[in-house]
């Protein structure tokens, strides 16, 4: 018998550490080759670590949310035959990229990383870089030896008393303590998960449970990003209503006379094309502001981030070079990217590099929002809900399809006048959609 050491792989971008976001195995589990052992995250990409061998997990290091240095041994797997533990001295001096025996199976990003030329041989990427895969539910804690019928649940008297008072049958509570002992924490978790549902109490009872949820993985990235944006960028949010009647009519017609192979159009590609037009006149809106260096980089390419909700949280896939895509191409790309993001298969580069962002909650869009700028960008366009509203045309009320745009700008570099001008330009383009298609 020998041991195979599994180290945190170099996940690329020259990062020295990565955050552990998922454990798929526990000590004592038997694993097969290629079975996913864990997932780590850098930036917004999650990398799964597959098992290079078949064997039994005998050691596990790190908790979900821990930031672990590349090369740290995170697992030991006992295998039949020779392992790599004997090589310890050799691999001790750093997790060499040229250590194929160790890295081959766990260098998932090799094929994707431009910076991985150092790799001596092309290593087959056994793991895929996935964009924030829907985080698997954390594995339930190992439960102790199953209780024989009629055996009482194992819990100290104080836990039994609390359970009794809360009306909880301890037989239903999984114990995570030694020998399956039910701890106070287990009871807390159970109470939270039940929402007190199993209580036989009469009437409403206050639920004093507090559940601690570790902010890890994508959620942590989002939190950091939002905090950064809101703390550094003085937002100015400007809301304008847009009469979408004409655009909607056009859109219906275009969808009605759809040629095969052409995607169905939503409002989004119209807005994207309108933005391209408006940006051409106000390039300062399509920029990244490096406030530390004091430089605003205005981009020729309009790379539009589309904020998308996925099961594990908010991600922003990016439609690159919208200025070089026609409306159908934009639509196609939006559909492809949002699917990829939802399935967790978006590539890392598809999730970065935006220069301006659209935030849309569709039917949940509300009437006004205050979008948070995707730092270091300087503008974000928020799409509110489209609805038929009465409009005074000067003589009477007429039903019009109205939609608000709530847009935020970095007020350090964009004055209110410019912000308003940009939105007014968008309004003009979208209210007279033919203008979107006028070549200049």
């Amino acid at each position, binding site marked *: 018998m020998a041991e195979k050491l599994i180290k945190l792989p170099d996940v690329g971008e020259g990062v020295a550490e990565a955050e552990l976001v998922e454990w798929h195995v526990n000590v004592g589990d038997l694993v097969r080759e290629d079975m996913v052992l864990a997932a780590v995250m850098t930036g917004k990409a999650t990398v799964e670590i597959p098992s290079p061998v078949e064997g039994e997990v005998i050691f596990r290091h790190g908790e979900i949310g821990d930031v672990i240095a590349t090369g740290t041994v995170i697992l030991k797997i006992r295998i039949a035959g020779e392992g790599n533990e004997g090589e310890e001295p050799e691999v001790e001096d750093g997790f060499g990229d040229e250590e194929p025996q160790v890295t081959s199976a766990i260098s998932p990003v090799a094929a994707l990383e431009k910076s991985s030329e150092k790799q001596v041989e092309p290593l087959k990427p056994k793991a895929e870089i996935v964009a924030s895969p829907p985080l698997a539910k954390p594995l339930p804690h190992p439960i102790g*030896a199953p209780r*024989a019928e009629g055996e009482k649940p*194992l819990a100290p008297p104080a836990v*039994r008393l609390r359970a009794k*008072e809360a009306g909880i049958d301890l037989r239903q509570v999984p114990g995570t303590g030694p*020998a*399956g*002992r039910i701890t106070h924490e287990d009871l807390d978790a159970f109470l939270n998960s039940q929402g007190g549902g199993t209580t036989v109490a009469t009437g409403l009872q206050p639920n004093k449970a507090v559940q601690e949820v570790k902010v890890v993985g994508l959620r942590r990235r989002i939190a950091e990003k939002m905090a950064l944006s809101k703390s550094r960028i003085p937002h100015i949010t400007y809301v304008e209503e847009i009469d979408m009647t004409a655009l909607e009519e056009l859109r219906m017609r275009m969808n009605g006379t759809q040629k095969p192979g052409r995607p169905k159009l939503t409002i989004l590609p119209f807005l994207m094309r309108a933005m391209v037009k408006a940006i051409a006149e106000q390039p300062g809106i399509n920029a990244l502001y490096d406030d530390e260096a004091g430089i605003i980089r205005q981009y020729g390419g309009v790379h539009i981030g589309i904020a998308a909700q996925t099961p594990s949280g908010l991600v922003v896939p990016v439609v690159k070079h919208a200025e070089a895509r026609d409306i159908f191409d934009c639509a196609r790309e939006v559909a492809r990217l949002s699917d990829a993001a939802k399935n967790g298969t978006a590539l890392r580069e598809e999730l970065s590099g935006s220069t301006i962002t659209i935030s849309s909650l569709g039917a949940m869009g509300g009437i006004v929002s205050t979008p948070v700028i995707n730092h270091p960008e300087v503008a974000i366009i928020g799409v509110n809900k489209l609805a038929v509203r009465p409009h005074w045309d000067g003589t009477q009320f007429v039903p019009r399809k109205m939609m608000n745009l709530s847009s935020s700008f970095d007020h350090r570099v964009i004055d209110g006048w410019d912000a308003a001008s940009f939105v007014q330009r968008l309004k003009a383009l979208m209210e007279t959609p033919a203008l979107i298609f006028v070549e200049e």
Partner: protein
Amino acid sequence: MKEITCKLLVIGAGPGGYVCAIRAGQLGVDTVIVEMAKPGGTCLNIGCIPSKAIIHAADDFAKTVAMAAGKNAMGIKADNPAIDLAKTMAWKDGITGRLTLGVAGLLKKAGVKIVVGRAKFRDGKTVAVETETGEQVIRAENIVIATGSAPVELPILPFGGKVVSSTGALSLTEVPERLAVVGAGYVGLELGLAFAKLGAKVTIVEALDRILPLYDTQLTQPVARRLVALGVDVLLGTKVKGLSSNGEALLAETGSRDERRIVADKVLVTVGRKPVTEGWGREELELDMDGRFLRIDEQCRTSMRGIYAIGDVTGEPMLAHRAMAQGEMVAEIVSGKRRSWDKRAIPAVCFTDPEIVSVGMSPDEAKAGGREIKIGQFPFSANGRAMTLSAEEGFVRVVARADNHLVLGIQGVGAGISELSAAFSLAIEMGARLEDVAGTIHAHPTQSEGFAEAALKALGHALHV
């Protein structure tokens, strides 16, 4: 006499009853307790406490006798030790007196009304108490029956004259020259050993073929050896036939049908205890029985609404601490709290010489479930503190599940081991594993180290054996 109305009425102020009443009082429940004798019940007045006093006195006396006989290894000498049993009894009565007063004080402090007299049910909500000043009727929403138990009397050896129960034995003012003890359960052995130490020639007659049938032989062997050392005759498999016609001797028949004539000045009958289910008007109620006991559920409720029963009247083990725990629970239930019986273990202690403790499952009980178990046993002969106490007899034994090392039972035999019962019970209630016990620092030098060592032994790496 004016009727009393209350929320809770407790019948019997033994350890179960008085604890129930005190707790109920603390919780603001309007409580009345009825007791026909002194508060404290059998335990305080004629059981646990007085017997321990006599056992302790007998121990000290026996040690002094050994010193006088030049049998003291520590080099202590004494001359002509003597015991004035009447004075011993007075000392013992002083203790029980203080304790019963203490209980009465606690009841008063908790706001519990004490009614002295014999209670009798009229119906499920009404009890009449014969007091010195007449009949007192008490109406209660909830009634707790805590009438306890009494020594079993043998028809062929009725109490009276030289035939005494444990109560009688605990009030003798002279040490009988020859004492016959019928029954080798814990009461018979505790008192038999004590009187042997006080100088009586003791013969113990037991119908079964072993002493202390509730404990396994490993645990009882040290006691058997001590009986031999004290010159106590133990006749096993022997049935008593009554007193001889002149009343001089106890007649018995051995398993091989040999007649035995045991000349005795006193005959102590300790063949068990029976629940007190008569004399308080049970016939007025519709209470389901469980054999000779009152049937109760996991909340100590009887088959009648509002009537609870606790303590010896509800079944085995007939132990004061079980009754107390039941009493506390019932008080809390009556006060509106949600409670049910969820104790994992009720420790049992024999104050024999040496003492025996058993908590949780014995090895045989643990195996009976078809479980794989691990057993670790540590002898006091390897314990420094036991040596310094000249108490090397005995051991601690831990029984655990083989798969997850959950401690299922802990037994021990040895001088003063009753005090270790707290650690044993706590371990089981907390759901300790062998590693928890072994991983707890036990003070050195104490006998308690034997506990950790026994756990280590079960884990396969005891340090001191």
